[in-house]
């Protein structure tokens, strides 16, 4: 399904590049779209139409700021289950994404075989193979190694959460990447919770990035609600990677506004007041206010972004609601490369 996608990251960023006002405005528009989509799929879950939803609300600046620092079509993106905003940033449409949530035919990442947001998008370089936590880290490292072996000018970025940082695979992957100076950026979205387990029970240090020195690579902590800060840190890390200087941990501190997934009840372990407090630093609002103060965004444009976003999401809801479920003819396809398995 080829469609005109607006350009995401035009120039290759150098270590001290930053986002132009025009790019910031484009990020904001994309964030508004993403937030609208996110709220809509949550509603679809409550209606029984989307069996499982993991929200990215609160994570948008961290996900989009980092995507903007990389080269769409060249670089490789290893995701985890919360990276809805990465998909939107890379240009997947609301319809394409929503097909995954309602598990209908034509779903582009896995043919609706997998949970939403999971699978592969070859053109956009997206890999999200499983929702087992942390397994993507060694996989991303292997990918980075392969792209160097093939002489590609590509950077691999590996997204993961604070919970994944405890998994043995994370240690093994980071260690290897540092030893071999691989072109990879480890982007941690630290929202302080692994389902219900808070950071204080997950690790004895204050940040995942503080472990970077232990592996022999640099690590940096940035405010995950600040698109520019995330962009700049990721750009610098990507530049190092491309220059053969090896991996970096970029840790973005974010807030998770909703429960872990639509199956979670976070009132069992989080106070409402803490979440309300966190919502005061909403990255979408922060970016909007910044653009207004820069004189780049007026209320008419803001209104237009919101209504266009809503319209696109409404259209996606209609289309995917009417779309058929996948047929079962292809049930046995792709177990092996050479055709169906013997019964």
């Amino acid at each position, binding site marked *: 399904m080829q469609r005109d996608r607006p350009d995401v990251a035009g120039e290759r960023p150098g270590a001290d590049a930053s986002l132009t006002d025009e790019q910031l405005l484009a990020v904001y528009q994309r964030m508004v779209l993403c937030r609208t989509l996110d709220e809509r799929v949550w*509603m679809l879950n409550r209606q*029984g139409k989307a*069996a*499982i939803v993991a929200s990215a609300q609160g994570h948008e600046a961290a996900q989009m700021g980092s995507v903007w620092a990389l080269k769409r079509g060249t670089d490789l993106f290893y995701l985890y289950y919360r990276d809805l905003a990465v998909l939107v940033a890379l240009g997947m449409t609301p319809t394409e994404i929503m097909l995954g949530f309602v598990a209908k035919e034509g779903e582009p990442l896995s043919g609706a075989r997998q*949970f939403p947001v999971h699978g592969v998008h070859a053109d956009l370089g997206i890999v999200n193979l499983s929702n087992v936590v942390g397994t993507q880290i060694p996989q991303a490292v292997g990918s980075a190694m392969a792209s160097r072996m093939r002489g590609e000018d590509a950077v691999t970025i590996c997204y993961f959460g604070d919970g994944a940082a405890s998994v043995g695979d994370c240690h093994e992957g980071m260690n290897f990447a540092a030893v071999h100076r691989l072109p990879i950026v480890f982007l941690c979205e630290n929202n302080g919770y692994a389902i219900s387990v808070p950071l204080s029970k997950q690790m004895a240090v204050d940040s995942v990035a503080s472990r970077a020195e232990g592996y022999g690579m640099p690590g940096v902590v940035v405010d995950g609600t600040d698109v520019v800060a995330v962009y700049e840190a990721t750009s610098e890390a990507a530049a190092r990677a491309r220059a053969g200087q090896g991996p970096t941990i970029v840790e973005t501190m974010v807030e998770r506004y909703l429960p*872990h*997934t639509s199956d979670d009840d976070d009132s069992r372990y*989080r106070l409402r007041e803490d979440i309300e407090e966190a919502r005061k630093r909403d990255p979408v609002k922060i970016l909007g206010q910044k653009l207004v103060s820069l004189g780049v965004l007026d209320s008419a444009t803001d209104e237009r972004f919101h209504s266009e976003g809503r319209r696109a999401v409404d259209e996606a*809801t209609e289309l995917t609601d009417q779309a058929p479920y996948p047929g079962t003819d292809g049930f046995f396809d792709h177990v092996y490369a050479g055709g169906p398995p013997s019964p």
Partner: protein
Amino acid sequence: MKIELPHVGESVTEAIIGQWLKQVGDTVQKYDPLVEVVTDKVAMEVPSPATGTLSSILVQEGDTVPMGAVIAEMAVEGVEPVEATKPTPEISAAAPAVIDRTGVFLKDVAPVGPTGSGGPMPVSSAEDEGRSYSPAVLRLAQAHDVDLSAITGTGIGGRVTRKDVQSHIDGRGQGTAPQAPPSATDDEERIPLAPVRRMIAENMARSASTIPEAWMLVEVDVSSLTQLREEQVARFQQREGAKLTLLPFVIKAVAESLAENRMVNATWGGDSIVLKRKINIGVAIAAPQGLVVPVIHDADTMDVIALARAVNDLATRAHDGRLRVEDVQGGTFTINNTGALGSVAGKAIINHPQVAILNTEAAVKRPVVIDDAVAIRSIMNLCITFDHRVLDGAEAGAFVAGVKQRLEGARDWGLGR
């Protein structure tokens, strides 16, 4: 156009209407949430199927409504959207009427979600301790609004059978029409249950229905303690920036008496009594959102000053809504300061699963007889409610006597520093 309660999935057949988010006369956009409803899986919002004006609301908060029922109407401009065909709900296969050890595989219950058990669950009537109800019984009870916990069962092991429910319904008598679900009228106001209130209600009901309680009242002469407090209160205020009340003295006396009467610092374990090693005393506080019982952990290791500070801190945070989850967990005994409300005697409900709760009533000057002469003393009543499965009168009495003796006796409370 008519707005129906949408079919949510194969196994959900009805919902309870929650709060209406739009009112009659409001303009609504397509997909705007109209009303909150609660199914047996999770709370959800019903979105508007079109853009228009809400012209009538046909069901009220608290009504139980089957999927597909018309709940409201709206005026829509232009062409009516084509109604998509709705999936027919799965017809429950006739389930066997007997639940035995093999169990029954339920049809009209939603399974767990893909990655967890789902959002907050409304408590179903079948959660009564030790009772399980067959699908036939549940359906009949629901249709006739019968409270199953009130029925004595004649089945095996006291099981409530369908016949039991039917005779209960028949016996409700001539002239009593089946109870219609109450709807709000002009003289009533419905307040939806906030999650905290719902939790409090469940805990209270559980405690009251499972614990056989006994109650005892003891008078304590706190004259000298009151005098000590009055002497120290100004200094304490200046040094600690907080009020000094009788409560930290009581907590201290209670902690010491619990150490000597370990059976009171315990929980009912079914086939054993579980003694707790730590003494974590909860203090009941009326916070804005409802009753909350923050806990002072290891109260026996703290002196009166430290206890006073802890109480102040917890009370302040409770009122500000800043209590953390750790603050309300791990309690082994609860003190209920009903005296602050002016009460001189009262029976509190035990904070399940503890075995006792102590009311500290108001300290009031009364005429009492000492050595055959009348004197005026400050009397504070202590009222203990205790679990009679675990404690007898003697043990409860010994514990309270220990508290009384400490509060009445002359001792160094460690305030002069």
